[in-house]
């Protein structure tokens, strides 16, 4: 067993397919200002139905990138989902900005380029959202405070409560009140233990 530690160093890239090469480059390079940092163009290396492709990467800060596959000669997949479907939106990329001023500066920049920008204050992050030409949601997020050990322990209890209910029922949990009630019991039990 290697003694080299297995620790992650952040995101290198996320990748999704595109059927809009020019528009994707315009959006990420021209509008967002991300540098084109790498592109692989390969012949006959992909699967049989799309052997030739371009794999393109845009720099997204701190050596992270966002990448796309452009499968040459491949028609867009028939999908029952449109970009306004919740499942389409749930898979998204969120980039970190360090201050609220930066977040608002991005909002101003994106709106000045004619993009529709949604701004939402969540629990410990504030975010703005835009949709890229492929229909993928891109989020810019400012984290209001550091996550503490309490956040992590609380998250573990939430997940433990939900999983316990599902294991007992043999079915997915369907409402959050049930999870909150179970979690209340878990917290009470833990408090009894430390009392």
């Amino acid at each position, binding site marked *: 067993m290697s003694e080299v530690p297995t620790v992650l160093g952040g995101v290198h890239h996320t990748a999704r397919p595109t059927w809009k090469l020019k528009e994707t480059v315009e959006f990420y390079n021209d509008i967002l200002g991300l540098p084109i940092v790498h592109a692989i163009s390969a012949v006959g290396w992909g699967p049989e139905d799309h052997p030739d492709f371009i794999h393109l990467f845009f720099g997204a800060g701190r050596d992270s990138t966002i990448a796309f596959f452009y499968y040459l000669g491949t028609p867009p997949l028939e999908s029952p989902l449109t970009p306004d479907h919740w499942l389409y939106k749930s898979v998204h990329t969120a980039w970190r900005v360090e201050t609220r001023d930066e977040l608002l500066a991005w909002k101003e920049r994106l709106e000045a380029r004619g993009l529709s920008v949604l701004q939402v204050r969540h629990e410990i992050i504030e975010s703005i959202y835009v949709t890229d030409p492929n229909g993928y949601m891109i989020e810019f997020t400012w984290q209001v405070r550091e996550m503490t050990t309490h956040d992590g322990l609380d998250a573990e209890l939430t997940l433990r409560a939900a999983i316990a209910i599902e294991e007992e029922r043999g079915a997915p949990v369907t409402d959050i009140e049930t999870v909150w009630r179970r979690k*209340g019991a878990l917290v009470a039990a833990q408090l009894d233990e430390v009392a």
Partner: protein
Amino acid sequence: MPVIYVLDVPEFRALADVARANSACRVTATPLGYIRIASDGDIVFDRRELGFKPAIWYGAFTGGIEGRIAEFGRDTVRIVADEGAAA
């Protein structure tokens, strides 16, 4: 007697502050980073009094509850004693 556990972090702290001003509620800190709010009667909060935006409001009881949600509207929530068995 309904109880709620509030994670002791800034975004949820107004729950404890408002409960402390309510003589029906007993608010205690616990060793696990939760603030425990108990009440002999129903626990009722008004969203505007808390100053909560929707993202916090609709996740306000993520710390856990002993009791059940009798009402969870846009601006009012009411936790009541649980008469049945816990889930």
